[in-house]
């Protein structure tokens, strides 16, 4: 017992001394950990904001971090944040900075190409793809698909086999459907509508799928013509001429309206094709598999 207490007697002061020596260094490390504006903590906070979809603040935090240390992932995420904020050109500039000497070169190029595609200037898009500077090493298939799709959007696909073969097996059927839709859109003809309306007022509008407007046109023109006829018959010549003028005016207006109805019909077809294809591409994320660090 005595021996044991002697041992304790010696141990406590020594342990205390040791702790007193190491405590300041421990405290120092805590201090730096708790400095919540440190680069590491900015990174953690930025990642949290990014996953919360607060892209504006996340990009700010990442920029602060990059002032101290380089990080390609963060530069990529800044580009992604800018894209999400609708700042497409800034985003592309950001991705460009990853085109050389980076592990994310291909991913950055894919994002760059995707934004270029989304900007709708397909001629410019194709010229970019043609420049080999923007080509990826590992994803040539995706570039080809988007290239062919840009041709489809502009209705410039000449080689149907090349177009279809650019896509994977499970995509071919859908793409064939879109190709056929573009090739044979089912447009109505303006001249036909005009002639039909000249023969029977309103018929051109019915041809352009505007049955209600066509019937209205017919009734209006017919009623005015009848009034004109009836007034002439009853020797009300002035009124007869007024109604005749109005009938002629609405007859001409109906022919004009048939032409514009056909144009609107065709525009609606184009719109539907465009939005269906865009919806499909958006669901497939433009064939691009995004890196896991994007908090999907």
């Amino acid at each position: 017992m005595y021996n044991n207490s002697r041992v304790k007697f010696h141990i406590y002061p020594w342990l205390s001394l040791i702790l007193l020596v190491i405590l300041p260094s421990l405290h120092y490390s805590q201090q730096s950990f708790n400095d919540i504006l440190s680069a590491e903590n900015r990174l953690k906070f930025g990642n949290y904001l990014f996953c919360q979809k607060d892209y504006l603040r996340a990009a700010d935090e990442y920029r602060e971090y990059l002032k101290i240390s380089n990080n390609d992932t963060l530069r990529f995420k800044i580009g992604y944040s800018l894209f999400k904020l609708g700042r497409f050109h800034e985003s592309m500039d950001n991705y460009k900075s990853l085109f050389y000497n980076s592990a994310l070169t291909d991913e950055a190029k894919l994002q760059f190409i995707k934004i270029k595609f989304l900007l709708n200037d397909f001629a410019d898009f194709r010229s970019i793809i043609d420049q080999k500077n923007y080509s990826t090493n590992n994803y040539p298939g995706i570039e080809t698909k988007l290239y062919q799709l840009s041709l489809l959007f502009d209705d410039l696909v000449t080689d149907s086999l090349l177009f279809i073969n650019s896509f994977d097996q499970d995509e071919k059927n859908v793409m064939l459907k879109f190709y056929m839709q573009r090739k044979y859109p089912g447009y109505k003809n303006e001249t036909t509508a005009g002639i039909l309306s000249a023969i029977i007022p309103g018929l051109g509008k019915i041809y352009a799928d505007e049955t209600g407007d066509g019937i209205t046109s017919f009734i209006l023109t017919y009623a005015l013509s009848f009034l004109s006829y009836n007034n002439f018959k009853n020797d009300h010549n002035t009124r007869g001429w007024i109604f005749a003028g109005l009938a002629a005016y609405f007859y001409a207006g109906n022919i004009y309206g048939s032409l514009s109805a056909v144009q609107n019909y065709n525009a609606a077809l184009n719109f539907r094709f465009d939005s269906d294809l865009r919806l499909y591409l958006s669901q497939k994320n433009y064939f691009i598999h995004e890196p896991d660090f994007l908090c999907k």
Partner: protein
Amino acid sequence: MKLYSKISAIIFSVIIMSVTFSERLSAQNYLARQLSFADKLFSEELYFEAITEYKRLMFFDKDKIHDFRCNFNIGLCYKYGGFYDNAIVYFKQAELSTIIDEDIFQSRIQVARCNILRKTTSVALSILNDLEHETRFADKKEDIYYWRGWALMVADDWENASRSFYYIDPEHPLKLLCDNVEGNKYSVTFAKVISYILPGSGQFYSGNYLSGFMSLGWNLWLGFLTVNSFVEDRIFDGLVIGNLLWLRFYRGNVQNAENFVLQENINIANNAYKFLQNNFTGEKP
């Protein structure tokens, strides 16, 4: 010897405890500094930046001791920036991060105030009704009546707004304002009824004399043409003029009487809103 051993053990324990809690104490210190930094930005009306700092504080505040305050202040920042939808989300989070009745009440009142500001006043009124029926907020009736009055004012229901302020104080300045606005407003029903009887009179009532005269003129002339056609046995003419012209201008006269009164009433209400925005010194949503 035994005493010396005990003293050594106590000193050792104190050091161990200080090591254990130093991390916690140090974190608290930094969080407090972060909070005061965020508060400083808030007081300087740098609301965008303040939100960032409050969010940062919440992220590093693992014990969630500042959650209510941060969420509440983020809500306020968004409110001051006009992002009322976002503000409501954070006030609701603030409500969920506290168990104190006063804090819950303030969070809900802020949600109601945001709804007043974004002019979804029916939602604000529903929130205020719910608060009124909760017994734990029985001592907050005045606040509820006050914001209900505001919601009703913004909803252009000055009569009920006046009643709500009356419950606080029969001589409440906002009650007097509501009474004044209500007294100055034109009656839409009256304008329409007199316009049905005598075309143009509704426009006279709201002070649009030229439009009133023109309406009266059109209706008298077209009415005469219609009646005259029937008298002269020109039934078709009578039907066409009566249907396509006279009725059109008669209907237009009633519509105009209503529109002019509504416009005048909007002007009267807007003058009151301008006063509330620029000159009223009491609490605003």
